[in-house]
Protein backbone atom coordinates (compact mmCIF):
# COMPACT_ATOMS: atom_id res chain seq x y z
CA UNK A 1 0.00 0.00 0.00
CA UNK A 2 1.12 3.54 -0.62
CA UNK A 3 1.49 6.29 1.97
CA UNK A 4 2.41 9.96 2.16
CA UNK A 5 4.36 11.71 4.91
CA UNK A 6 4.28 15.44 5.45
CA UNK A 7 6.73 15.96 8.28
CA UNK A 8 5.86 19.58 9.03
CA UNK A 9 2.39 20.14 10.44
CA UNK A 10 2.93 23.91 10.54
CA UNK A 11 5.31 26.22 8.70
CA UNK A 12 5.43 29.90 9.69
CA UNK A 13 7.15 32.24 7.23
CA UNK A 14 7.40 35.97 6.68
CA UNK A 15 5.88 37.57 3.62
CA UNK A 16 8.21 37.68 0.58
CA UNK A 17 10.42 34.94 2.05
CA UNK A 18 10.92 31.62 0.24
CA UNK A 19 9.21 28.48 1.50
CA UNK A 20 9.54 24.73 1.06
CA UNK A 21 6.88 22.25 2.16
CA UNK A 22 8.18 18.72 2.39
CA UNK A 23 6.49 15.59 1.11
CA UNK A 24 7.81 12.03 1.07
CA UNK A 25 5.94 9.02 -0.21
CA UNK A 26 6.18 5.27 0.01
CA UNK A 27 5.01 2.91 -2.71
CA UNK A 28 6.10 -0.38 -4.23
CA UNK A 29 4.88 0.72 -7.67
CA UNK A 30 5.08 3.86 -9.76
CA UNK A 31 2.97 6.78 -8.65
CA UNK A 32 1.63 10.08 -9.82
CA UNK A 33 2.08 12.97 -7.38
CA UNK A 34 -0.12 15.94 -6.53
CA UNK A 35 -0.21 19.02 -4.36
CA UNK A 36 -3.57 20.48 -3.32
CA UNK A 37 -4.29 23.66 -1.37
CA UNK A 38 -7.25 24.15 0.98
CA UNK A 39 -8.30 27.63 2.04
CA UNK A 40 -10.49 27.97 5.17
CA UNK A 41 -13.99 26.57 4.71
CA UNK A 42 -13.30 25.66 1.11
CA UNK A 43 -12.66 22.49 -0.82
CA UNK A 44 -9.29 21.40 -2.14
CA UNK A 45 -7.83 23.02 -5.23
CA UNK A 46 -5.13 21.45 -7.39
CA UNK A 47 -1.83 23.35 -7.33
CA UNK A 48 0.21 21.06 -9.57
CA UNK A 49 0.78 17.44 -10.50
CA UNK A 50 3.56 15.19 -11.72
CA UNK A 51 2.55 12.49 -14.17
CA UNK A 52 5.69 11.93 -16.23
CA UNK A 53 8.45 13.78 -18.06
CA UNK A 54 10.30 16.70 -16.52
CA UNK A 55 10.79 16.25 -12.80
CA UNK A 56 10.32 19.99 -12.17
CA UNK A 57 6.65 20.84 -12.27
CA UNK A 58 5.26 24.35 -12.26
CA UNK A 59 1.81 25.07 -10.93
CA UNK A 60 -0.55 27.91 -10.20
CA UNK A 61 0.15 30.90 -7.95
CA UNK A 62 3.93 30.68 -8.52
CA UNK A 63 4.39 27.29 -6.86
CA UNK A 64 6.65 24.55 -8.19
CA UNK A 65 7.64 21.07 -7.06
CA UNK A 66 10.40 18.66 -7.93
CA UNK A 67 9.98 14.91 -8.16
CA UNK A 68 12.97 13.02 -6.77
CA UNK A 69 12.55 9.31 -7.35
CA UNK A 70 15.67 8.23 -5.47
CA UNK A 71 14.60 10.11 -2.36
CA UNK A 72 10.90 9.41 -2.92
CA UNK A 73 10.15 13.07 -2.38
CA UNK A 74 7.98 15.73 -3.99
CA UNK A 75 8.71 18.97 -2.12
CA UNK A 76 6.71 22.10 -2.86
CA UNK A 77 8.47 25.47 -3.18
CA UNK A 78 7.72 29.11 -3.73
CA UNK A 79 10.47 31.75 -3.98
CA UNK A 80 8.42 34.55 -2.42
CA UNK A 81 5.21 34.00 -0.48
CA UNK A 82 2.28 36.34 -0.02
CA UNK A 83 -0.22 36.71 2.79
CA UNK A 84 -2.83 35.14 0.53
CA UNK A 85 -0.81 31.89 0.45
CA UNK A 86 -1.85 31.19 4.04
CA UNK A 87 -3.68 27.86 3.79
CA UNK A 88 -3.41 24.11 4.33
CA UNK A 89 -1.36 22.22 1.75
CA UNK A 90 -1.83 18.52 1.04
CA UNK A 91 0.47 16.19 -0.84
CA UNK A 92 -1.14 13.15 -2.47
CA UNK A 93 -0.18 10.09 -4.49
CA UNK A 94 -2.04 8.02 -7.02
CA UNK A 95 -0.83 4.56 -7.99
CA UNK A 96 -0.32 4.17 -11.72
CA UNK A 97 -2.82 1.69 -13.09
CA UNK A 98 -4.73 1.65 -9.83
CA UNK A 99 -7.74 3.67 -10.77
CA UNK A 100 -7.91 7.28 -9.71
CA UNK A 101 -7.66 6.82 -5.95
CA UNK A 102 -5.77 9.61 -4.19
CA UNK A 103 -3.96 8.93 -0.92
CA UNK A 104 -3.34 12.15 0.99
CA UNK A 105 -0.80 13.19 3.59
CA UNK A 106 -1.87 14.84 6.84
CA UNK A 107 -1.29 18.34 5.52
CA UNK A 108 0.97 21.30 6.28
CA UNK A 109 -0.47 24.56 7.55
CA UNK A 110 1.40 27.44 5.94
CA UNK A 111 1.07 30.68 7.86
CA UNK A 112 2.46 33.77 6.19
CA UNK A 113 3.15 36.69 8.53
CA UNK A 114 3.90 40.34 7.87
Amino acid sequence: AQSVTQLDSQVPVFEEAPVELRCNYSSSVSVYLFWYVQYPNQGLQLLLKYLSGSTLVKGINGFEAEFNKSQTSFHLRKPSVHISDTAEYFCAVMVTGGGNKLTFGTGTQLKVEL
Partner: protein
Amino acid sequence: EAGVAQSPRYKIIEKRQSVAFWCNPISGHATLYWYQQILGQGPKLLIQFQNNGVVDDSQLPKDRFSAERLKGVDSTLKIQPAKLEDSAVYLCASSSGGIRETQYFGPGTRLLVL
Protein backbone atom coordinates in the same frame (compact mmCIF):
# COMPACT_ATOMS: atom_id res chain seq x y z
CA GLU B 1 -18.34 26.54 -15.41
CA ALA B 2 -20.09 25.73 -12.17
CA GLY B 3 -18.08 23.79 -9.63
CA VAL B 4 -19.02 20.84 -7.46
CA ALA B 5 -21.99 21.70 -5.26
CA GLN B 6 -22.64 20.20 -1.85
CA SER B 7 -25.36 20.60 0.74
CA PRO B 8 -25.85 21.18 3.53
CA ARG B 9 -22.66 23.04 4.44
CA TYR B 10 -23.02 22.32 8.14
CA LYS B 11 -24.92 19.72 10.13
CA ILE B 12 -25.14 19.00 13.84
CA ILE B 13 -26.81 15.79 15.01
CA GLU B 14 -26.82 13.56 18.05
CA LYS B 15 -25.26 10.13 18.02
CA ARG B 16 -27.48 7.34 16.72
CA GLN B 17 -29.35 9.78 14.49
CA SER B 18 -29.18 9.53 10.71
CA VAL B 19 -27.90 12.15 8.27
CA ALA B 20 -27.62 12.55 4.50
CA PHE B 21 -25.36 14.65 2.33
CA TRP B 22 -25.95 15.64 -1.26
CA CYS B 23 -23.47 16.28 -4.07
CA ASN B 24 -23.94 17.64 -7.58
CA PRO B 25 -20.77 17.14 -9.65
CA ILE B 26 -19.49 19.27 -12.49
CA SER B 27 -21.65 18.75 -15.57
CA GLY B 28 -20.41 15.89 -17.71
CA HIS B 29 -18.08 14.42 -15.11
CA ALA B 30 -18.42 10.65 -15.11
CA THR B 31 -16.48 9.95 -11.92
CA LEU B 32 -17.61 11.02 -8.46
CA TYR B 33 -15.79 10.59 -5.17
CA TRP B 34 -16.73 10.94 -1.51
CA TYR B 35 -13.94 11.66 0.96
CA GLN B 36 -13.95 11.91 4.75
CA GLN B 37 -11.61 14.49 6.29
CA ILE B 38 -11.22 14.19 10.05
CA LEU B 39 -9.74 17.20 11.84
CA GLY B 40 -5.96 17.17 11.56
CA GLN B 41 -5.89 14.49 8.87
CA GLY B 42 -5.87 14.38 5.11
CA PRO B 43 -8.96 13.37 3.17
CA LYS B 44 -9.64 9.63 2.97
CA LEU B 45 -11.54 8.12 0.06
CA LEU B 46 -14.80 6.49 1.11
CA ILE B 47 -16.32 5.58 -2.24
CA GLN B 48 -15.75 6.16 -5.95
CA PHE B 49 -18.44 5.97 -8.64
CA GLN B 50 -17.96 5.67 -12.39
CA ASN B 51 -21.26 6.86 -13.82
CA ASN B 52 -23.74 5.05 -11.54
CA GLY B 53 -21.53 2.06 -10.73
CA VAL B 54 -19.27 1.65 -7.71
CA VAL B 55 -15.55 1.40 -8.57
CA ASP B 56 -14.07 1.38 -5.06
CA ASP B 57 -15.81 1.28 -1.69
CA SER B 58 -13.13 -0.60 0.21
CA GLN B 59 -12.89 2.06 2.94
CA LEU B 60 -16.60 2.69 3.36
CA PRO B 61 -17.92 1.45 6.75
CA LYS B 62 -20.79 -0.40 5.17
CA ASP B 63 -22.52 -1.23 8.45
CA ARG B 64 -23.50 2.44 8.82
CA PHE B 65 -22.54 4.30 5.64
CA SER B 66 -24.29 4.02 2.29
CA ALA B 67 -24.04 5.98 -0.94
CA GLU B 68 -25.82 6.03 -4.23
CA ARG B 69 -25.56 7.81 -7.53
CA LEU B 70 -28.81 7.35 -9.33
CA LYS B 71 -28.79 8.22 -13.04
CA GLY B 72 -25.05 8.82 -12.89
CA VAL B 73 -25.28 12.47 -11.87
CA ASP B 74 -26.14 13.57 -8.30
CA SER B 75 -25.07 11.49 -5.34
CA THR B 76 -26.11 11.11 -1.73
CA LEU B 77 -24.06 9.80 1.17
CA LYS B 78 -25.94 8.58 4.24
CA ILE B 79 -24.85 7.70 7.75
CA GLN B 80 -27.20 5.63 9.90
CA PRO B 81 -26.74 5.54 12.84
CA ALA B 82 -24.07 8.18 13.38
CA LYS B 83 -21.26 7.79 15.90
CA LEU B 84 -19.15 10.44 17.61
CA GLU B 85 -16.15 9.46 15.47
CA ASP B 86 -18.07 10.34 12.30
CA SER B 87 -17.54 14.04 13.06
CA ALA B 88 -15.62 15.25 10.04
CA VAL B 89 -15.84 17.19 6.81
CA TYR B 90 -17.31 15.17 3.97
CA LEU B 91 -15.91 16.21 0.63
CA CYS B 92 -17.33 15.38 -2.74
CA ALA B 93 -15.14 15.50 -5.84
CA SER B 94 -15.65 14.79 -9.51
CA SER B 95 -13.47 14.22 -12.55
CA SER B 96 -14.05 13.66 -16.23
CA GLY B 97 -13.31 9.98 -15.81
CA GLY B 98 -10.06 9.52 -17.67
CA ILE B 99 -7.03 8.11 -15.95
CA ARG B 100 -5.06 10.75 -14.03
CA GLU B 101 -7.71 13.39 -14.64
CA THR B 102 -7.84 16.21 -12.11
CA GLN B 103 -10.33 15.79 -9.30
CA TYR B 104 -12.34 18.94 -8.54
CA PHE B 105 -13.56 19.27 -4.97
CA GLY B 106 -16.68 20.81 -3.54
CA PRO B 107 -16.66 22.98 -0.38
CA GLY B 108 -17.60 20.06 1.85
CA THR B 109 -20.20 19.36 4.52
CA ARG B 110 -19.00 19.80 8.08
CA LEU B 111 -20.68 17.23 10.37
CA LEU B 112 -20.62 17.39 14.13
CA VAL B 113 -21.99 14.42 16.06
CA LEU B 114 -22.79 15.13 19.71
